[in-house]
């Protein structure tokens, strides 16, 4: 009972000092919590940002003709359905093992059409398509997120849900050549039909899409007589940077051992996602768009490493701050300890008393600090990425171990000093 009275006494008499320790521990703990959380989540966050580069996987039919790609030599009347994918298969992308990592996808159909007597390549796609999957889930996806670099110069994106589908979005070069602007109506004639389309928007993309125009998928299929078929599917997926295993697997998954195969299949490498897409979509070939996939991996790695090093620096800072303060606060109490020794307290009793005091303070500080750090992490997430940082329970454990360890180490030199104190000297005031 006396022990508790001593401790209670320490808190009542020295609440200011205890408060300073608790505040410092709380600050240290909040740095640790915030930085560790941000560090572990920064990969996902940057990955999301990199999705601005658009699709990183391209899915085409296995028998897609090379020639038509190169020279647009399409059979003038007959549509060769072998070289297309079925539109009803597109949604299956959302049923693969890594479905959660597929952020956006959209089928694309291209066809040569005639506008004002001139031949153009028209592109049909989903804009904001609503899709009911076989699994009962529903997905909203489309090209809007896959073309985030487009600048809409006038007008707005086609809305498949509300507007009627007789609309097109035209590239800036095309608009200039044909002298069209938003609201104008143009007549498009394809192989199997034609129609009047209202210009909904003029965009600038900085690439070949500026010379062409985009229209809803169902419309281009009517024009070209390819109902139910798409030429390719653009997929944007969150991927893990490639390593040796991924490179090996990309060449030929059959060469892997069973364990390697499982590891590869269950990791979100771009090659395993491609492989899984080929499994669910019949007669398809999925290829990684290297320019995007490779660079993303590099940038992700670098960012994560950068954040790890910054986190380590902050952790060292926090640890030194805490142990510093603990050391100096224990040293301050030389007089009190001298008195205890003089009245016959054993070293072990004194150490136990002091450690208990410090640890109670540290635990209170650490708990407060954890929640502060939680707040800091969310502030960082909100301001930088506009979304919450995913908090991991593991971090509470790491922070707890860290704080207790640091507090203990911080008290050690002071305690060693205490044990060497001679009561008479201390009490005499030296």
């Amino acid at each position, binding site marked *: 009972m006396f022990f508790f009275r001593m401790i209670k006494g320490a808190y009542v008499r020295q609440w200011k*000092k205890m408060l*300073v320790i608790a*505040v*410092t521990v709380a600050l*240290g703990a*909040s*740095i640790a919590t915030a*930085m560790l959380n*941000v560090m572990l989540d*920064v990969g996902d966050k*940057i990955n999301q*940002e*990199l999705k*601005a*580069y*658009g699709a990183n996987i*391209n899915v085409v039919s296995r028998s897609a003709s*090379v*020639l038509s*790609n*190169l*020279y647009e030599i399409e059979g003038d009347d007959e549509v060769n359905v072998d070289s297309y994918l079925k539109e009803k298969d597109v949604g299956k992308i959302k049923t693969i093992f890594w479905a959660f990592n597929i952020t956006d996808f959209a089928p694309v159909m291209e066809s040569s059409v005639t506008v004002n007597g001139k031949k153009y390549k028209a592109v049909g796609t989903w804009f904001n398509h609503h899709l009911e999957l076989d699994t009962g889930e529903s997905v909203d996806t489309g090209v809007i997120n896959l073309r*985030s*670099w487009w*600048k809409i110069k006038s007008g707005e994106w086609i809305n498949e849900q509300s507007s009627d589908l007789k609309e097109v979005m035209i590239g800036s070069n095309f608009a200039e050549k044909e002298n069209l602007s938003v609201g104008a109506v143009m007549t498009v004639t394809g192989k199997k039909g034609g129609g009047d389309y209202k210009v909904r928007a003029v965009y600038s*993309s*900085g*690439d070949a899409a500026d010379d062409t125009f985009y229209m809803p998928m169902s419309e281009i299929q009517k024009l070209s007589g390819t109902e139910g078929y798409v030429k390719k599917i653009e997929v944007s997926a969150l991927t893990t940077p490639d390593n040796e295993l991924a490179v090996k697997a990309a060449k030929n998954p059959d060469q892997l051992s069973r364990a390697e195969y499982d590891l590869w299949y269950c990791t979100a490498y771009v090659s395993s996602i491609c492989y899984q897409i080929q499994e669910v979509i019949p007669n398809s070939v999925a*290829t990684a*768009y*290297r*320019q995007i996939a*490779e*660079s993303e991996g*590099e*940038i992700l790695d*670098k*960012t994560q490493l*950068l954040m790890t*090093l*910054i986190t380590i*620096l*902050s952790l*060292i*800072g*926090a640890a*030194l*701050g*805490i142990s*510093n*303060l603990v*050391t*100096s*606060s224990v*040293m*301050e109490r030389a007089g009190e300890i001298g008195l205890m020794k003089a009245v016959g307290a054993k070293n072990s009793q004194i150490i136990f008393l002091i450690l208990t005091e410090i640890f109670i303070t540290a635990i209170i500080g650490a708990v407060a600090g954890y929640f502060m750090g939680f707040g*800091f992490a969310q*502030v*960082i997430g909100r301001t*930088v990425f506009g979304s919450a940082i995913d908090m991991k329970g593991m971090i509470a454990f790491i922070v707890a171990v860290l704080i207790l360890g640091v507090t203990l180490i911080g008290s050690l030199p002071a305690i060693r000093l205490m044990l060497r104190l001679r009561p008479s000297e201390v009490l005499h005031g030296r």
Partner: protein
Amino acid sequence: MNAKTKMFFKMITSSILKRRSRMIIALLAIIVGATILSGLVTIYYDVPRQMGAQFRNYGANMIFTSSSSDAKLTDEAVKEGVKKIPAAELKGYTPYRYEAVRINKQPVIAAGTDIPATLVTSPYWFVEGKRPEKDGEVLVGKTVADLIGARVGESINVQYYDPDEEDDGLEKEGVDLTVSGILETGSTEEEYIYASFSDLELITGKTAGYDVVELSVSSTEANLEKYAKSVEDANALITARLVTRVTSSEGAVLTKLQSLVFIVTAVVLVLTMICVATTMTAVIAERRKEIGLRKALGASNASIMKEFLSEGVLLGGVGGVLGSVFGFVFAEIVSVNVFSGSITFRPFILVLSLLASIVVTGLSSLIPIRSATEIDPALILKGE
């Protein structure tokens, strides 16, 4: 130096030397604070440059095309245009000339280019085998390779049919090239074959300018737009365009990253400053007895304040200098490990962290000194 100043310095140095362990604690706190400040601020300023270099992995972010449909870009025009872009920011440029050729009677597009330059403007190309190193070698896109059944090391015969001449249906004598590598990109590049300009001249039998020049420039989108304009002004033959897909996304991600480092720096900095302040407070607070004694001996509040403050400033200065050096070393380690490049030394960061540590240390010692000087010396000396 008069006796008074001498005494002043003696008191300061002896107080630091005699109370070594406490001073080391305070100094350590200041050093850590200054290290974090200078290290993170240095990283903050260097991130756009270093990360920007990483983003060049995406390849070209600007292209030149000819502004007239009849004339191709000439070598002089391109050189003149490229000069308008600061040499430090221009990572590299690759001209391309496209011609329709036939291999095994299959129509294929052949690109003449400066193969070594593609390493910079298209670093993401994955080549099975290797990129051509000398004339007579050709890099074949994967789609084309599948189409004509070409493999690395084999020889292919490339023929040219002039689109302006009547096709007489006769078999032409082509040029034999060795396939040095198969190109995989997952994109349209797989549908071309790439050879040197001299090989393409040999195949077509004529020289011509460039169709497209790809440039990789490490700069912001706003600057790129400026460069594009000045290039077009410098030579009317060139139309310079940005690859918006690359430039706008790069800008977005870089801004996010920099603000991330900024906010992290700010949060960590505020917390470390509070840590330094609490440590200083604790270190000074235990010297109340000393302050009381001095007052009892007749020292004025002002002189006590001056002495303790100078001590704090000295401590802050030493800690600040050491901390800035450590911070720079830390930033350098980060830079070498993460970006495998050296960091730019910025003297103002050194000055900034030195000033910050002096101010923080000074201010945080001010508060406890003030409260100590306000108390009656008799009470302090009595031990209450």
